[in-house]
C-alpha cells in the first residue's frame, strides 16, 4: 500500500507540437494540503487537467491508490473521487443551492422519482455541518463569488472526494472569506482528503499548505516542506532568478489635480464617493471584493454612469456617458477581467492593440493596414510582449503577456489618467515586477494613476496615497507614510471612524 494517494510519474504532454509538460512527477499524500506553484505557462493547469481526465498524457503514468488509472474524461475522474474547483466556477446559475450540490446525483425514491424532501434536508444538513449559512432555495446566479465557492466545496464534500483540487480559489475573496475557506480546507484535510492547492499568493501558502511543488516552464523543479522554505526560495524556484524589487516605487512630486470626484453615487453600488487624483501620483483604491471599487471605476469610465455626483477631469466638470467619451477626455481603463473586458481572445494581437485608436490608422474610415500593423508592433515591442509574432491570437498568450497587450493597447491612446483594476491578478511574478516598474515610470512622466487592488502588499508598495472603500462608501484615506496593513484592513472591514492626515 503506497503512502501516496496519487502519483504522477514522468508525465509529458504536448499541444500542436509544443511541449507543455516534460516528464513531470508529482506525489500526493492523503490528508495533506499540497501547494502547486509556478508562473503562468509553467504547466500547472495542464497538469491539473490531466489529473482530472480532461486531457490525456502523451507519456507517463498515473497511479491512484497504487493502481494505474486512465481517465478519458472528467466524469471518470469524478467517479474515482477526484473533485476540482476551477477559477471558472461550475455551478448552474438557474438552479438553486440545494440542487447545485446534488446536480446529476439527486436522491431518488424507490420508484425513481426525485426525492425533493431528501434533497433539501441533506443539503441543509451538509451546509450546517460546514458552518455555511445559505438559503437552499436561492438561485446560484444570485450568490456572491465566495458563496458560490462554498457551494462548490459543499458539493465536493458530498461526493466524498478523496482528492480535491482548488485552482486559485482565493483571488476573488475577501480576507474574511479566505479565513472561512481555509477553515473548511483544514477540516477536509483532517478527514483525510488530499488537497492540491494552486495559488499565486505566497503568504496564503505559508499559512495553509504542508508541502509545495514548484513547476517551471513545464518541468518539475522540486517538492519541499513548507516549513523548510522561505518566500525568496519559492520565488527563485519559480522564476530561476531572484527578483530584487517587486515594488519599485519612486517618489514623485504630485502635480495638478487631473481627476476630481465629488459625492459620486450610483444607486445600488456606491454612495458619496469623493477623492482627488493628481498628476504623477498613484492613488491606491483598497477594499474588499464587492466594496464597489470596480463600479466606481466603471462609472468614471462611462460604462455604468453615476446617478448623482460630480466629476471633474483636468479642472472641467464633465458628464461621461460612454467609454468613447472617456477616452477622448484622456482616460484609460485596464479592466479587472482580461478575457471578458480587456481583450478579444479570438483575434490576433494587432487588432487587439489598435482597437481604440483604429481611426488613427484610417483615412475617412478606410483602413491603412501597414500603419496599423507598425503601430501595434511598436507598442507590443515596447511592452516586451513575449509572443511569436503579432499575428498570434491573443488567447494563445500567457496571462502576463495578455496583460501586457492590454496595457500596450491603452498606452497607445496616450491617456493622461490611467485606471488599473487589479493590474497584476493572475500574473507571474516576473511580469508583475515589470508592470510595477512601468507604473512607476509612467507616474514619473506625469501620468495620474488610479490603482484598484486587493493585494495589500501591492497597495502598500505602490501607492502614494490610499483610499479604502467598504460597501460602497469611502471609509478611510491614508498617505503612504502612515498606512499599514492593519489600518487598511480595519477600514475595509469594520465600522470605524478614521482620522485622516493630509
Amino acid at each position, binding site marked *: 500500500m503506497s503512502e501516496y494517494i496519487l502519483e504522477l510519474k514522468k508525465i509529458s504532454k504536448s499541444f500542436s507540437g509544443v511541449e507543455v509538460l516534460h516528464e513531470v512527477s508529482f506525489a500526493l499524500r492523503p490528508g495533506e494540503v499540497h501547494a502547486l506553484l509556478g508562473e503562468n505557462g509553467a504547466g500547472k493547469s495542464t497538469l491539473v487537467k490531466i489529473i482530472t481526465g480532461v486531457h490525456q498524457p502523451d507519456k507517463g503514468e498515473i497511479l491512484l491508490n497504487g493502481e494505474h488509472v486512465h481517465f478519458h474524461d472528467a466524469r471518470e475522474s469524478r467517479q474515482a473521487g477526484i473533485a476540482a474547483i476551477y477559477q471558472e466556477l461550475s455551478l448552474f446559475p438557474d438552479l438553486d443551492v440545494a440542487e447545485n450540490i446534488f446536480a446529476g446525483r439527486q436522491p431518488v425514491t424507490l420508484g425513481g422519482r426525485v426525492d425533493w424532501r431528501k434533497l433539501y434536508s441533506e443539503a441543509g444538513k451538509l451546509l450546517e455541518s460546514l458552518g455555511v449559512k445559505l438559503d437552499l432555495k*436561492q*438561485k446560484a446566479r444570485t450568490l456572491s463569488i465566495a458563496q458560490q465557492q462554498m457551494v462548490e466545496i459543499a458539493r465536493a464534500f458530498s461526493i466524498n472526494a478523496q482528492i480535491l483540487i482548488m485552482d486559485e480559489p482565493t483571488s476573488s475573496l475577501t480576507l474574511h472569506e479566505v479565513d472561512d475557506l481555509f477553515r473548511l480546507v483544514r477540516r477536509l484535510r483532517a478527514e483525510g482528503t488530499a488537497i492540491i492547492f494552486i495559488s499565486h499568493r505566497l503568504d496564503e501558502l505559508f499559512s495553509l499548505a504542508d508541502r509545495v511543488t514548484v513547476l517551471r516552464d513545464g518541468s518539475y523543479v522540486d517538492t519541499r516542506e513548507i516549513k523548510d522554505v522561505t518566500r525568496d526560495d519559492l520565488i527563485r524556484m519559480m522564476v530561476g532568478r531572484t527578483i530584487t524589487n517587486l515594488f519599485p516605487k519612486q517618489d514623485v512630486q504630485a502635480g495638478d489635480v487631473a481627476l476630481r470626484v465629488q459625492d459620486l453615487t450610483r444607486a445600488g453600488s456606491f454612495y458619496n464617493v469623493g477623492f482627488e487624483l493628481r498628476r504623477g501620483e498613484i492613488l491606491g483604491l483598497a477594499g474588499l471584493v464587492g466594496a464597489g471599487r470596480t463600479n466606481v471605476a466603471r462609472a468614471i469610465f462611462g460604462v455604468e454612469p453615476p446617478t448623482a455626483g460630480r466629476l471633474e477631469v483636468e479642472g472641467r466638470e464633465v458628464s461621461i456617458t460612454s467609454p468613447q467619451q472617456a477616452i477622448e477626455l484622456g482616460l484609460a481603463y485596464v479592466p479587472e477581467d482580461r478575457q471578458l473586458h480587456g481583450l478579444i481572445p479570438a483575434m490576433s494581437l494587432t487588432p487587439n492593440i489598435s482597437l481604440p485608436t483604429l481611426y488613427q490608422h484610417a483615412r475617412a474610415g478606410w483602413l491603412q493596414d501597414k500603419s496599423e500593423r507598425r503601430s501595434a508592433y511598436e507598442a507590443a515591442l515596447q511592452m516586451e510582449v513575449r509572443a511569436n509574432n503579432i499575428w498570434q491570437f491573443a488567447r494563445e498568450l500567457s496571462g502576463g503577456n495578455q496583460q501586457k497587450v492590454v496595457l500596450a493597447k491603452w498606452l497607445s491612446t496616450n491617456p493622461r489618467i490611467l485606471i488599473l483594476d487589479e493590474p497584476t491578478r493572475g500574473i507571474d511574478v516576473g511580469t508583475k515586477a515589470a508592470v510595477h516598474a512601468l507604473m512607476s515610470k509612467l507616474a514619473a512622466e506625469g501620468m495620474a494613476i488610479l490603482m484598484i487592488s486587493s493585494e495589500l502588499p501591492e497597495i502598500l508598495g505602490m501607492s502614494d496615497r490610499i483610499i479604502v472603500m467598504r460597501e460602497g462608501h469611502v471609509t478611510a484615506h491614508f498617505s503612504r507614510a502612515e498606512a499599514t496593513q492593519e489600518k487598511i484592513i480595519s477600514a475595509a472591514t469594520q465600522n470605524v*471612524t478614521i482620522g485622516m492626515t493630509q
Partner: protein
Amino acid sequence: MTVQNPPAIRRSIARNGWLWTLIRFREAGIGLFILILVIAVTLRAPSFLTIDNFEDILLNISILTIVALAQTMVIITHGIDLSVSSMIGLVAMMVAFVVKQNPEMPVIFSVLLGMALGSVLGTFNGLIITFGKVPPIIATLGTLSIYRGLVFFYSQGTWINSFELPANFKALSKGTPLGLPNMVIIAILVAIVVYYFLNYTRTGRDIYAVGSNPDAAQFAGIRKQRITFLVYMISGLLSGLAAVLWASRFESAQTNTALGFELQTVAASVVGGVSISGGVGTVTGVLLGALLLGIIQNSLTLIRISPFWQLAAQGLLILIAVISDKWILSRVERTKK
C-alpha cells in the same frame, strides 16, 4: 474627511425575498393578464364566457400545447427547433396516406405510427446537432426545408381530404367519450407527463442543468450529448403525435399543413417565461402562454377584428412579454450589489 459607519444595505436574504416574489410574479403576471383580458373581452362580447367557447379555445390550443411543451424543453437546453412545423406536415401526410389505405386499422395504430415517424425525424435533428455539431438554429432551419420538401416529394402535390379518411380517425381528436374532446384530454395528459418528467426525474433536471451551464454539466457527470439528443427526439415524437391530431382535427393532410406553426410554439414558450438563453422555463408558464395565445386568437374573432390582425397581435405579444421580462430583470439587478 471622516466617515461614519456606512449604512446597511439590503442583505441577500431580503433580496432573495424580493426576487422570489418577482419570479413567481412572472407566472402570476401572465395569469393576471389573462384574467384582465378575459374580463375585457367578455364586456365587449358576452359570448366569450360560455362553456362552448371555452371548449373551442381548448380545442384550438391543444395541439399548440403539445408541441410548445416539446419546444420548451428544447429551448431550456439553449437550443431551438424550427423544424416542428415541417415534421408535423410530413408525418400528417404519411399517416393520412396509410390511414386512407387501411381504413379498418385501429386508431391507436395511427397514433403510434405518427409518434414513431416523428421520433425518427427528431432523431435525425438530434444527430445532426450532437454528432454533427451543427448549431441548432442552422440544423433545424435546414431540416425545416428538407422535411417540407419531403412532404411535396411524398405526395407529389396531391392531398388527402375528408372523404378519404375513416370516421374513427376523424373522431380521434374531436370525439368526446370522456366529456371533453379527446384532443384536449391528450394534451392534458402530455402536460402532466412532461411536468412530472421535468420536475421529478433526474433526466428532466439534467435538462435544466445542461441549459444553465453546459460545461458544468459535463463536469458533474451529466451526459450532455445524450440529453441534447433526447430533447430533439422528444420534439419529433410530440410533433408526430400532434401531426396525427392535426390530420384528424382538420380532416385533411396538405402540403402546407402546419406551415409557419413553429412561430406559435416559440411564442407560447417565450410568453410563458422560457428564456431563450436556456436553463429557465416551467410547464405552467408554457400552458399559460399557450392559453393566452388561444384567448387572443379567439377574442379577436369575437370582437370582429379582422383575422388579418391575428399575426400582428401574436407578434406584439411576444415583444411585450420579452420587454416586460427585461424590465423586471433590470429592477432585480439594481437591488443586487
